[in-house]
């Protein structure tokens, strides 16, 4: 399984408005950044070079891991996508 190909095997209806919004200034001061390795869809990437956290909501599985793992309360918004948007499981 290659996580870069998540859109090939799991369906999404992407909402242009992100359901999770991050205050990335908080991430700069984080001593752990557990979200980067814990997120099962690799939505969080930390650039050591630029000292920037990037969050992409497109492939979010709405699992809740980042919500629990973030101990800095870096979210200015964490909710589920609007009705009808987001991940759509067929079989699982």
């Amino acid at each position: 399984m290659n996580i870069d190909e998540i859109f090939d095997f799991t369906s999404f209806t992407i909402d242009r408005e992100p359901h999770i919004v991050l205050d990335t200034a908080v991430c700069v001061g984080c001593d752990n950044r557990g979200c980067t390795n814990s997120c099962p869809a690799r939505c969080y990437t930390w650039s050591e070079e630029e000292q920037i956290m990037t969050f992409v909501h497109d492939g979010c599985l709405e699992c809740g891991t980042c919500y629990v793992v973030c101990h800095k309360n870096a979210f200015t918004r964490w909710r589920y996508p609007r009705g009808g948007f987001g991940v759509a499981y067929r079989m699982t």
Partner: protein
Amino acid sequence: MSKQYQAIVVGAGPAGSSAALTMARAGLDVALVERGTFPGEKNMFGGILHRMTSIEELMPDFWTKAPLERHIAKKGTTFMTAEASFNVQHETTNFDRAPYNGYTVFRPRFDRWLAEEAVKAGATLITRSTVDDLIYKNDRIAGVSILGRTGQIKAPVVIAADGVLSFTAQKAGLRRPKFNADQMAVGVKALIDMPREMIDDRFGLVRDQGFANEFVGCTGGVRGGGFLYTNYDSLSIGLVFHLASLRTSGKTPYDLLNEFMEQPQVAKLVRGGRLQEYSAHVIPEGGYNMIPELAGNGILVAGDAAALCNATGVNLEGINLASHSGILAGKTVIEAHQQQDFSLKTLKRYKERLDLSWVMKDLKGFRNAPKMLHIERIYNEYPELVCSMMEHIYRIDGTPKMSIPKLILREVKERVGLKNAISDALTAWRAL
């Protein structure tokens, strides 16, 4: 959009639909609100749908109607290292005849079916609606507001069955605003397409028999475990990680899942299959000690939202607890309507009902299980100990054999330490 109902259920999962079904059967006008385009679209589990005795009471022919996959006739546990595995299996004809002990299911099919049963009983299913907040009138709950729509759904009582993160319970002040990562796990799962005959041959199954296996020692040292379940023509395979442990491990769930599927003995089981879907979800694994307030003025909490999940390491139960709690919540709301009182005074009967049921009795009885699951040695040292011991027992290489008690003692001393082993055994004994 603003309509008056007698009750609102947030979330059309097993807890919500069971609650809606119970109330609709009693003639209440119920709104069942779901954020997916259909119920079950957002739900996943790595597990078994165990017997649901409370649903059987509502629908005696439940098992013949529900969209189920194979029934579990064979269960196994595997202790695993990178190179070796030691398997324990249990199979009985008692689990091979009705009423079956458990089934594999696909949540998008099963949850949708259960919600439709609630609709048949008279509930109104409102999909594509993410509940945003509770609305109050004169300090009493008056309904919910829907995200992105300028509308409200009104009712004097709300059942929060909106899953593990339950923002509804949070907004009612019933659950802690921040979760403890020690009490939560995340499951990741690959659905692997495989011809039915191949599954039957590979796992030694006939007819509709299914196989369920748990794995210990497959999580790269992160606290957690693995699972493999057989559906009719696919395998569900995945890993569960405790979040406090995953967070600091630096390892990613998908890399560990790949490693798991490439372990030589597991690779043989999934060989020839094709990845069809990848999913993930958080699981409330804290047990009895993490249960939130279950009732408030005008609100009840059921299912995962109430952390009703029993992860003892032996049986992994959730849907059956969710469904039972939903039914008890539904019954309490029916009673509240008879008395026309939706205050905590009446609704706290729900907690009393749950306390008397097997749901709370099981959770209370196994309240030390999470503590056992936090013993780090379970996930590395013990699987290695078991596999190495078995290799010594089976190996014939011209050297004299050590007696088995002596061998056990040596392995324990070498890998775990005697003191640790005794303390772990005591913790496990108390937990189970």
